[in-house]
């Protein structure tokens, strides 16, 4: 009977799936002698519009290093992809698949590309001794290298971001002493990400005397009439917009409707891409945003990529008009940080692929000086950072950029966040975490051994 044959066929298929579909690929493989750098992707799902250009930037830069520079000191970088659609579970499967290397290439560092996955891996990665790094948007207390030896929230955390915004407002007001009486409203996405700036802003307002107004917007934020009325009634001078996705263009449009000046709204690093301003239309002109991933194509390294990768048809981008956008450049910056970490590790352990312990050492000694950034051709694109065993952020500066109606233009140079102000509070949070988990914080001797 056909039904029976069908049943047998299904059984064979299922059995084949069990045997063949599971288990990581054999350790020996085609990529012996290369450095594994697994790329977790979200080319599908709700965040694909930002995922696609950002993966384009990352893959294009790695391709540039491999094909034009011949790898990192001759070691080619192997970047197999693993699609997560921004789901934590798929991400964990990817992590398990790649954490011990793939097809003969060892893993040195792992990048979750998602705040949720980043949090989910916090414990796992420590137990597996796999260094996890994510520029922009890690958990602020994870800077504390004594408690989190394997977490590297490089470049900028949200606490530093809050202080960059306050300093920019102070610049405009004519000095930090002029902040007294200024009203700063924070309109935040009501989630863990959004709430992360409540505490730093309270600390900042106590120090500088500005009035701190916090207004939540429930996910996804398609309706903000009441919130903006509230901002108008409170007579706020500035709005710090900590949005995500559709919430950003809606905020800009609603602000225009209630008559709040758009050039006094400062977006978060995730509220400052072309996809946040274009849907808002003409009223977005003049809108400001914090940026650690400055857009533009004038940087030397981007011109190189254009010449060797984009123009030769080797780009990962299907739609090359995304070249030089905020998210594309974010990808390039991620690539630069990873490659520089490999370089740092190779300088110590030799010109060969690194393992996770060596990757941890490399990230912990990453020192991107202005001179080195100039060599890469990324001056103005990447902010200088210096990671130490005590400080796993290593940066904390950002620029303020403005939307001209057609593109983003940087308004300022790198503004340093006041990380010293928050140090004790965050350190205490990390130590509390250590206590909850029964972790003994590292001492300087442990750090030297590692």
């Amino acid at each position, binding site marked *: 009977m056909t039904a029976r044959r069908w049943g047998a066929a299904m059984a064979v298929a299922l059995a084949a799936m069990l045997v063949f579909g*599971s288990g990581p690929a054999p350790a020996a493989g085609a990529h012996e002698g290369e450095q594994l750098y697994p790329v977790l992707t979200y080319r*599908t799902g709700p965040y694909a519009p930002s995922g696609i250009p950002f993966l384009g930037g990352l893959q294009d830069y790695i391709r540039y290093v491999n094909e034009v520079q011949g790898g990192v000191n001759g070691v080619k970088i192997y970047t197999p992809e693993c699609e997560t659609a921004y789901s*934590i579970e*798929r991400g964990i499967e990817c992590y*398990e*698949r790649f954490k011990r290397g793939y097809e003969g290439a060892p893993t040195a560092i792992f990048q979750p590309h998602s705040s949720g996955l980043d949090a*989910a891996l916090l414990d796992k990665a420590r137990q597996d001794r796999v260094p996890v790094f994510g520029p922009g948007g890690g958990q602020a207390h994870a800077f504390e290298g004594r408690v989190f030896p394997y977490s590297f929230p490089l470049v900028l955390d949200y606490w530093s971001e809050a202080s960059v915004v306050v300093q920019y407002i102070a610049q405009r007001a004519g000095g930090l002493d002029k902040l007294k009486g200024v009203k700063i409203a924070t309109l935040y996405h009501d989630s863990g990400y959004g709430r992360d700036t409540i505490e730093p802003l309270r600390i900042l307002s106590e120090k500088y005397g500005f009035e701190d107004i916090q207004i939540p917007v429930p996910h996804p934020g398609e309706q903000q009439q009441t919130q903006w009325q509230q901002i108008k009634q409170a007579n706020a001078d500035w709005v710090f917009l900590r949005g995500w996705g559709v919430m950003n263009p809606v905020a800009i449009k609603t602000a225009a409707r209630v008559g709040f000046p758009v050039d006094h709204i400062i977006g978060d690093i995730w509220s400052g891409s072309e996809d946040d301003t274009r849907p808002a239309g003409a009223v977005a002109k003049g809108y400001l945003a914090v940026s650690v991933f400055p857009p533009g194509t004038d940087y030397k390294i981007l011109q190189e990529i254009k010449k060797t990768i984009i123009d030769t048809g080797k780009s*990962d981008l299907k739609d090359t008009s995304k070249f030089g956008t905020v998210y594309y450049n974010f990808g390039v910056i991620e690539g630069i940080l990873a490659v520089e970490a490999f370089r740092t590790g190779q300088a110590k352990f030799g010109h060969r692929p690194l393992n996770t312990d060596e990757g941890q050492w490399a990230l912990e000694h990453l020192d991107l000086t202005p001179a080195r950034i100039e060599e890469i051709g990324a001056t103005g694109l990447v902010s200088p950072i210096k990671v130490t065993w005590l400080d796993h952020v290593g940066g904390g500066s950002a620029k303020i950029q403005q939307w001209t109606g057609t593109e983003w233009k940087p308004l300022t140079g790198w503004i340093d966040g006041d990380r010293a102000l928050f140090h004790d509070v965050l350190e205490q949070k990390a130590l509390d975490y250590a206590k909850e988990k029964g972790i003994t914080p590292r001492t300087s001797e442990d750090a030297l051994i590692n």
Partner: protein
Amino acid sequence: MSSTTAPAVAQKTISLPRSALRPLAVLAGGAVLLLPAFADEYWLNSILIPTITMGLAGIGLNLLMGYAGLVSLGSAAFMSIGAFTAYNLLLRAAWLPLPFTLVVAGVVAGVAGLFFGLPSLRIKGFYLAASTLGAQFFFEWLFTNFAWFSNHSLTLTISAPRLEIFGIDLRPAPGRYLLVVVTTVLLYWLATNLVRSRIGRDWMAIRDMDKAAAVIGIPIASRKLLAYAISAFYAGVAGALFAFAYLGTSDAHSFDLDKSFEVLFIVLIGGSASLFGNFLGAAFIVLTPIFLTRLVELLDLSTLFDNGFLINFEHVLFGLTIVVLLIREPDGLAQLLRGIRARWAVWPLRA
């Protein structure tokens, strides 16, 4: 054997209890003893633990849908209650033994299930499905808006402070695996007996025709509520295991509507009114995407197509597989297995 043993031919007619017992033995014996010794970490972490945990959640929904004939789109909400209850107990009542914590997590979820099952006394079908959606949205909102539940963590995530039993640390992969398997075997045994007991027969009577069931004196209202409570209990325990034995860290969004649908698919693909089928369904959901990725890699399709296309193609293939499977075998993978077993019994002849 004693004289009461039925002849071999008659045994085949008692299909449900026998067929439910045998996979139980296989699951318990084979899995517990052999796998941690042979399987590597990837197998345990990425294949077995999620399959078994989601299978357990599937049992919860299957008791409700397959046996009692009720619907729920709130499975993930009850999973999240289990996870958050277990977290708060582990954190605030650290002296409680882990098995007790899991049971309490299940019971709290069960109470919530009872409450959200109340509409089933009045409405049916689609209307009932819509009201269970309420649970889904309510608990996601509750756990994201009241930071107390996640101990005021910066990102509202929860992760188990400790997982130990009699002083043994269960955090390495084999430990978490054994925790999941032992819990699941016990609950599987409970579910098997439940559906064979008076309660189970009452559920099936209600499922097949509730008016007739009422006429023969089955207490419809209390049985329906019991079905919701027990279903949510299973989901709660599965949620706690999913959060701490599988993900390690999770938040309210790990248990969103998609997860509820996933549990629903596990029941549909595995087979309604089959307990073992839930594990087949869960294995299908966990393995198919990994398998498709491997297939694409093996055939070296990435040289022909770009990555974005391939990923979307995988999604299409996954959806297509489900559709074809359900058209050919509406009773799910469990029915497929039964057919194969029936054929094996008389092989090479035909029944």
